[in-house]
């Protein structure tokens, strides 16, 4: 019953690894390439087929994977840049969200004012440099169904 929410046995990491492996295999099989090398319009069409589909992606229903992918993408896009997305606070600048400021007491009753100060990250130091956890090289997928062509060619 959809109203009861997520009930699959996978942790978020397992859900993504299983589904991404299945998608890579599928694109490899049908198009002899990888998803990231498809043209933009074909990527969109493929994502739509996941959004509306019920394909079995190594145990993950396609629409469940798509919902998780969309939710995490929005989280990464709009979260504080300390998490590695929203680079240079581009998403915040795009919509005009100021980020981690602590006070609008003096502005809240200036109705309709255009807030133009640059946004602020939690990870900024006093030189306005944002500290981000360094990201190591992607670990190779493990298990019985490893990532296809990308790995064989020695990665990106």
């Amino acid at each position: 019953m959809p109203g009861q929410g997520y009930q699959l046995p996978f942790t978020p990491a397992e859900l993504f690894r299983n589904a991404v492996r299945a998608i890579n295999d599928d694109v490899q099989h049908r198009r002899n390439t990888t998803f990231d090398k498809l043209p933009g319009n074909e990527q969109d069409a493929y994502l739509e087929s996941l959004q509306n589909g019920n394909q079995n992606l190594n145990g993950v229903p396609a629409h469940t994977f798509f919902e998780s992918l969309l939710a995490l993408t929005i989280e990464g896009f709009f979260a504080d840049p300390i998490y590695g997305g929203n680079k240079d606070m581009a998403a915040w600048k795009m919509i005009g969200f100021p980020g981690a400021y602590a006070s609008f007491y003096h502005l809240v009753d200036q109705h309709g004012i255009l807030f133009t100060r640059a946004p602020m990250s939690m990870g900024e130091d006093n030189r306005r440099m944002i500290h981000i956890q360094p990201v190591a090289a992607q670990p190779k997928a493990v298990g019985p169904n490893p990532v296809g062509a990308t790995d064989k060619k020695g990665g990106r």
Partner: protein
Amino acid sequence: MATRLKEVDAVLIGVGLVGTMLGRELTKAGLKVVGLERGNAQFTVPDFQGPHMHDELRYSVRKAFMQDNTKEAMTFRNNVNQVALPIRRWESFLPGTGLGGAAVHWNGQTYRFQDDEFKMRSHTEQRYGKGFIDAELTVQDWGVTAADMEPYYDRFEYLLGTSGQAGNVKGQKIAGGNPFEDPRSRPYPTPPMKEPYGSAIFRKAAASLGYHPFPQPSSNLSQPYTNPEGMTLQACMFCGYCERFGCEHYAKSSPQTILLPVLLKDKNFTLRTQSQVLRINLAKDKKMATGVTYVDAAGREFEQPAKLVILCSFALNNVRMMLLSGIGQPYDPKTGQGVVGRNYAYQTMSAVQVFFDESVNINPFMRSGANGTLIADFVGDNFDHGPHKFIGGAYFGDVMTNGRPIEFHPTPPGTPAWGAKWKEAVVRHYNHTSVLNVHGSSMASRNNYLDLDPTYKDAWGQPLLRITFDFPANDLRMSAFTTDKALAVGKAMGGRQVAGSARKGPYGVTQYQTTHNTGGTAMGLDPGTSVVNRYLQSWDVPNLFVIGASNFPQNATYNPTDTVGALAYMSAEAIVNRYLKAPGQAMVHA
């Protein structure tokens, strides 16, 4: 084998808002009190400080302050013909945990319930006739009136320092306040909050339609305030990180800012965190509680004997503790018999979005958890229900709490959920949209109840609480009517486009609505339909008091916290002034 500890005068199950208040009242009366809190200790400094508190992903999306549902959750189904499954992600409601409980991350919206809602059945039958209430609804009177509750509301609001504009002081109507409110004995402790832009537009539109807009009463304070306990709060900075967050500014009334430091200094009080209470222990004849059994963080089991047990955890957990302890007769929906778990209700929410021209900068991020402007014209029985064939009502207004973009990026209906067109719409509308909340009542129904799940257990091997709930037809009719009214005000606000729809069934747990889960240990005058008497004393075990939103026989229109706090002071006064003079005696005879 449990280690038996030395007996104390009173033990508190949960040290949130109610636990802190009862701890204070009972230690002040000279009792030795132990407070058992399952979560961690946490304080304004260092735990709620900026800038790290301003982390939408961690606190709002990943829900860092909420109950750990890998250890303890509820199961849910819509009706008895379905199999309930565990709620594996908190979405619909967000049970808190830790010292201070949900009052750490509440919004501070502080309303009194109306007299007609305390007398839901008798008032309705008197005005509209006996057949007016749907047969499936188990709506009943509380056993108290607004006048009974006034002194306790007053005392609680002065503890919080609530900011608002009174509409009725001792029967004298005051312009700008809520004209429908029952008389209050004095004005709010602090003046209303500044009015944000979207709220000002709402106020003008609502007034133009003949309604009566007023500022939302807020326990995020408009100015510094020192409460009767000597605790000083500061003015709210409208930072936009309130609900789901702790307040770094000492501006939100929470146990940490209004009372806990006073209680923790009292030598009669002992706090034990990371203490998971498993059950309330009973004497052989099951007529008296002897204390509680709990497990600490190291897995050691303790028995804490106590002369008086105060069950004051979150509403749902209060009900579960009664069931786990075998106190009171569990409700059976087949027969309608039994009381524990009966009258579970929620809140019937909907929303209206007003999309403005790009020249209108709403600045949704300049907000507080409780601010803005609303109308009470459709609250409770403030309007004639006769032609509409439902009971209850809703308040609505622009009472937005934030513009945090992971969860707030409104787009008009018809916008795709992703891709270039979605992005374009988000950019176009983010800073130019006002959202009206339609906050509706929830009636108890014979089909909605709480019991112990037959299958799923928590990390300590105890059955989870099972929620069986769907929206009663009455509440869906109420939502259709009030959402229509909100859409009309939305249109009068001058936006380019107005969107919104009434709440529709079935209820699901995948979308946030509110954490206003109520009922299951209803208060009342009849032990056949309530779990506790009007002083919140158990009908079955007189040295047990159960306090919280679990006492509500059905949920009223407004947010519950003011009423929970008032009930806590009412019960504490009865315990100190009456119960302790004749301990172990029932204060009301069935």
